[in-house]
């Protein structure tokens, strides 16, 4: 195991993947990059976050996009590439960090310090969690989960050759509804420690 530690957490909507990533970042004292990645970029480029945050982690609309000589008009695609470049730059600098989503497991797959997770959960558990967090009905929660997962899948599969959620793409794919979110996080923490000690 190299000194650099890059942990990527891909997740289904409502699976608690983000909470798990927060837990790991805290335990290993690493910066966590999620939607705040855009803030890092906007601060560095001296541009407004409001301008770009609405395009974060969204799939490109193929019917309203065109690419000429590698230039695409799609705001979603440009913002995604901006984040990928930023992550690569951080990785090239030798930084250690935790990333939630953003195709990080594929974008950073060539770095030795990469440990990648995919967190999924049973639909029932995801619905209950989303109902509670957002204060919405069961059907609304279900619709929200389906819509978000559809977008995440489309986003991921456009930029990566391997499919979103395909277990061959991650070191561990885990169902958080079996052990519960906190126990899953602890288990993954143990795995990371074992990898560091390798």
């Amino acid at each position: 195991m190299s000194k650099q530690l890059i942990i990527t957490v891909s997740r289904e909507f409502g699976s608690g993947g983000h909470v798990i990533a927060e837990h790991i970042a805290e335990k290993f004292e690493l910066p966590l990059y999620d939607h705040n990645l855009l803030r890092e970029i906007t601060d560095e480029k001296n541009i407004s976050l409001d301008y770009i945050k609405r395009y974060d982690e969204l799939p490109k609309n193929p019917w309203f996009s065109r690419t000429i000589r590698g230039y695409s008009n799609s705001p979603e695609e440009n913002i995604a590439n901006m984040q990928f470049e930023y992550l690569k730059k951080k990785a090239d600098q030798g930084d250690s960090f935790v990333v939630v989503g953003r195709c990080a497991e594929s974008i950073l797959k060539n770095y030795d310090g990469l440990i990648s997770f995919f967190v999924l959960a049973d639909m029932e558990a995801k619905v209950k969690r989303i109902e509670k967090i957002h204060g919405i009905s069961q059907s609304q929660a279900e619709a929200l989960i389906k819509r978000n997962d559809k977008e995440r899948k489309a986003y991921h599969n456009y930029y990566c050759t391997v499919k979103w959620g395909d277990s061959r793409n991650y070191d561990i794919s885990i169902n958080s509804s079996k052990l519960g979110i906190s126990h899953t996080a602890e288990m993954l923490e143990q795995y990371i420690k074992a990898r560091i000690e390798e």
Partner: protein
Amino acid sequence: MTAQIFAVLIFLGMFILIITEKFERHITTLGCGLLTLIVVFGICMHSVSAVMQTLNIQSIFTVDFWYQAGESTESSIGINWATIFFIVGMMVMVEGMAMAGFFRWLCMRIANLVHYKTVPIFITFMIMSAILAMFIDSITVILFLAAVTVELAQLLKFNPVPMILSEIFCANLGGSATMCGDPPNIIIGTSLGYSFGDFIFNTGLIAGISLIVVIVYFYVIFHKELSSQSDEKKSVADYPDPKKAITNKKGFIISCIIFFGAVILLVTHAYTGLTVAFIGLFIAAVTLLASFKNAVKIIKSIDYQTILFFIGLFVVVGGLEETGVLEVIATFIGKVSGGNIKLMIAIIIWVSAIASAFVDNIPFAATMIPIIKSLSVTQNTSLSVLAWALSMGTDIGGSATPIGASANVVGTSVAAREGYPISWGEYCKKVVPATVLVLIISMIVIFVRYF
């Protein structure tokens, strides 16, 4: 009939694949071109002559291809090699200029001349965008202008989006003014035998009037957004020095000479008899000889994909032409307009504009050329008037949406990469009125001048 059906199916398939970007667009057109040669000409028509006519290689070995002493001739069937040669030549020249730092220097020099004041930069950059796009492909113009605009916006603390949108529109407008400004015009000019002068005195006049109107329009809608958000006073030293943009002084001077030489050759080609194919090859050769050290680098940087895209496209359109499909469409337009020429012009302008706003205007223009030729014969109408209507419709219509023309895609992409994404809504809200305005001006000028 079977050949016609297959020609149409291949054409529609090509359009759908271009829109969906399933494959790179040159792969799409080349694949569909090959299908046209095999299925339409080979299996359905059993015609070797149709293949030869569409490949059109024999045209390169005629004197007329390089030098035309008298009136230019029409040659719209098959691969338009004159367009290909010219585009390659311009690509080589532009690459040489870019390497020497010409475009960045020009942008910075103009910003410097107006003392880095936002509104004067806004107006001069619109004019510069239009003038440069008259001679250079709009992608290159916008690539440099948009990048410098973002740089200046960060320095002077203003929102670059209004300026980039105006530059994009003016690049498309400038491109419509000349034969070499926009790919549809190059194809129209070389296919129908029009000169640089023919375009300047017809579409150029419309573009000139329109430019004045759109500068006023963009100023009215954008001047508030352009005010600097910073009260910080800057000294001369804070601004970039235009001279620093020049990477190679000798190369810079040579590229300037070649550029002005190319402009002179283009402006005078109707008098000298030199064709655009000759001019393209000549400026490419001179650029490569003058930049001998960088010749390989320049050749490697040629956008071969665009060249292959054109070749495949011409073959597919050749399939429609050889099978008589385009004549059927022309007859239909003639019937719809009931022989009313003004209505026919209006249909050509607005249909071309609407189609070009959503699909690539190059295949659209290439398809429409044989149609307007046929219309001119069957309806006894002046071909040139139809050509100007088609040119303005495709060139200006392409401005309306972020995907209508190459300049729009590249300009919005440069803005987004620097953190200023432009949504469809934002783009169309500001640019569609300008597009409609110019289309109305085009229609009025054509009606008043030619009828």
